[in-house]
């Protein structure tokens, strides 16, 4: 039975320090939802509040409209996967997976059958009699996942489940987790600090900082139209440029102050302060052939096969990253001019808090 989870003005305090001030959020039934942010942003705290291991100092937490604040963790019907897997070292693989069913007093025959089934789903049925110390990290991860979902939880919680695996296994496991989640269709809350991992698995992502959700949206929305500069720099790579917003024939355009300006479609105008900040991702730059654009000098170039990674030093000394798809014929020390892709770049006010751009770019 999947549920939707509602956070109503949730507050978390440790003593006098407020870690999460009045956070509200709605997670849909069956959704794969990710809390993403740097360490200390409150994402694990929030997850543990859902699990019941952290107390809630204000607001309500609801599963399908039922307030859960006072429900003990063992009564919440939750499946949880821990960062260190937390496999019971004194039980075999099937013992671990059966544990939650035994506490639910499921009859023996059904336990055996359900354990068997779930071990097949996570593809470790061959190891069912092994002790945990004889398993690799990836296998332990699969046991932890099987143990969490075999009880048919209302909610599946995962706290940085992949951070202890090596890079290759991490990619393999995140595909497996995504696929298994789709198969069983449990509402899933996933915590990670790895933005690429979050993009890969999630239906929706909440980017958090200092206990506040900075941006809530699909991976595509968050990458294309980050709501503020923090999100823009945290998700993927980007360059931040200073520029001025001007009105040309009634349409808002961005002036780089050296004869180069670009009209941005759908840009909201800001009459109060013409100074803006631009977030330009490396692939949103283009080397100009017509002699206009932002002037700079080529400082480094790395050929990476699919594309070439360039570092260009602008006249103000700032270095920007540029990803070039083509075989631009530029050498180190060459003068180059850069143009931006007006449909993709994001324009923020001077504080970086407000995005003037609208619509998800192409």
């Amino acid at each position, binding site marked *: 039975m999947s549920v939707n989870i509602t956070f109503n003005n949730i507050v978390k305090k440790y003593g006098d320090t407020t870690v999460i001030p009045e956070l509200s959020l709605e997670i849909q039934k069956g959704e794969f939802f990710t809390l993403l942010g740097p360490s200390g942003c409150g994402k694990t705290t929030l997850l543990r509040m859902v*699990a*019941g*291991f952290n*107390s*809630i100092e204000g607001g309500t937490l609801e599963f399908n409209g039922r307030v859960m*604040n*006072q*429900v*003990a*963790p*063992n*009564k*919440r*019907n*939750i*499946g*949880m996967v*821990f*960062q*260190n897997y*937390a*496999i*019971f*070292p*004194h039980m075999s693989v099937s013992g671990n997976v059966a*544990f*939650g069913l035994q*506490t*639910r007093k499921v009859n023996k025959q059904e336990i055996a059958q359900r354990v068997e089934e779930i071990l097949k789903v996570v593809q470790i049925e061959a190891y069912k009699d092994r002790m945990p110390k004889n398993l690799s990290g990836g296998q332990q991860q699969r046991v*932890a996942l099987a*143990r*969490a979902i075999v*009880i048919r939880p209302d909610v599946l*919680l995962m706290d940085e489940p992949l951070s202890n695996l090596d890079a290759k296994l991490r990619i393999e496991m995140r595909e497996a987790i995504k696929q298994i989640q789709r198969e069983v269709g449990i509402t899933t809350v996933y915590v990670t600090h790895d933005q690429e991992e979050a993009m890969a698995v999630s239906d929706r992502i909440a980017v958090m900082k200092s206990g506040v959700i900075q941006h809530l949206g699909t991976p595509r929305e968050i990458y294309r139209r980050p709501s503020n500069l923090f999100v823009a720099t945290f998700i993927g790579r980007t360059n931040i440029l200073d520029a001025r917003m001007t009105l040309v024939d009634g349409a808002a355009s961005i002036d780089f102050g050296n004869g180069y300006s670009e009209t941005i479609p759908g840009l909201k105008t800001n009459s109060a302060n013409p100074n803006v900040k631009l977030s330009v991702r490396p692939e949103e730059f283009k080397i100009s052939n017509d002699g206009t654009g932002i002037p700079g000098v080529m400082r480094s170039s790395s050929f990476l096969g699919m594309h070439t990674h360039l570092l260009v030093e602008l006249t103000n000394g700032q270095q920007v990253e540029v990803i070039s798809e083509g075989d631009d014929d530029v050498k180190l020390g060459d003068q180059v001019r850069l143009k931006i892709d007006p449909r993709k770049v994001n324009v923020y006010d001077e504080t970086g808090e407000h995005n003037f751009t609208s619509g998800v770019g192409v």
Partner: protein
Amino acid sequence: MNGRMKRWDIWTLITTVIFLGYLLFLALPLFTLLFQSFIDGTTGQFSLAYFEKFFSRKYYTNAIWNSIKVTVCVTLLSVIIAGPLAYIMSTVKIKGAATIRILILISSMSAPFIGAYAWILLLGRSGVVTNAMKDWFGITMPEIYGFTGILLVLTLQLSPLIFMYVSGALNNVDNSLMEAAESMNCTGIRRMWKILMPLLTPTLLAGGLLVFMRAFADFGTPMLIGEGFRTVPVLIFTEFIGEVGGDDGFAAAISVIVVIFATSVFLLQKYISNKKSYSMSALNPIVPKEKKGFANIAAHAYVYLFTLLAMLPQLYVAYTSFKKTSGKIFVDGYSLDSYRSAFSKVGDSIFNTFFLAIVTIVIIVFASVLIAYATVKRKGTVANVLDTFTMMPYIVPGSILGIALLVTFNKQPMVLSGTAAILIIAFVIRRLPYTIRSSAAVLHQVSDSVEEASISLGASTMRTFFKVTVPMMLSGVVAGAILSWITIITELSTSIILYTGKTRTMTVAVYTEVVRGNYGVAAALSTLLTVITVISLLLFFKLSGKKEITM
């Protein structure tokens, strides 16, 4: 939150009950002792007379001075002898190293006074070695009684502790540290002094403290081999039990002085070692290497000689236990007479030892599981105080705890003197720390999330504790319990004060038989004790999978 409230109830109840137990059986007796030392026995008025008496007579202050002399010398000698021993065993390939480690451990596990009595048989006035030297070479061996004897016995008995501590620390020194030093042209003695010594200093301090406390509190050795050389535990015993009518108040005053002294040493050690502690774990531990020529021979000779000397008392005692006796005297030929008379004369002491030790161990296992859990996972004010309480037996010598319990519980409303209960209480308090520490050590390794996993899977707090936490602690609990067991059956200083005819233990029986000159019976009993100890130790190695013991 609900879950938190529930935990609070159960664990607060448990810690409070244990805490009250400690208050009643440790804090109250020690306080009573303190109280008695300041109250004149006849008038009931506050008085410093006992302390004045102590400090004004050389007879008493000498005992303190003697104790300090013995303790400091034993500690230094143990470090000087066992430090190199551990270094050799870690760096040089010694033939039979595994066996030697076990033998050294066994030698440290026996009751020290058995060593004293064995050395009297060997080097005493009519000892075998003394007589042989006189008959064959006409050499008169130096007197073994007094300071020399105590020093010999305690050093051989306690240096294995230093050996175990240093060996353990050397295991944690990464060989690449040695190689790094070597690559910077720092080798040999210089490397040992500049790199190894600083790394081992915290360990030496910890081991040194343990040796110091043991040597300071030891009662049997100076009693048997010290003759006129009186140390503080001997003084306390004679003042308390003395034939001339014991003086409780005065014994209490001496005890207070001793506890204050021991506490200062303990705190000083803590202070120094806190400033010099490193956390080490070796990826590439130092591996013993085969040595050639003189160095190899010298290393083997040193190790073998030490092992032989350490084992000699027990071997000789075992040997004499099979000798034929005529009355109290050994005669030529072999027999099981000593065992027969041991069983018929003091058979009850064997039963008593097992009965007391088993009851104690059961209590210790339950208490230490709960205390370890409370202090590691449920940190709080009460748990912290509990943690401090469990350290007390390191500071308070056994004979003083015995006296404290006796003076507290020999009157209404709680009369325990002369019962088995008072012995069990004393044993539990003194030997609990071994099991608590090894249980806590395992628990520290267990991440909180394992318990959370169990709870999130629907298990209640109690089910989690019994199904998940306790099974994971079990290895540590069992290992600790065996250590507690061994130290209970070989304990003398508390039981000698608390026993009565009905609760006499094996060690007490050995001691009284030795004093009476009944060497055959004493030897048979000690051998039995050694056999039990060895079996327990082997069980410990088997169950814990470890090759060493940290105390």
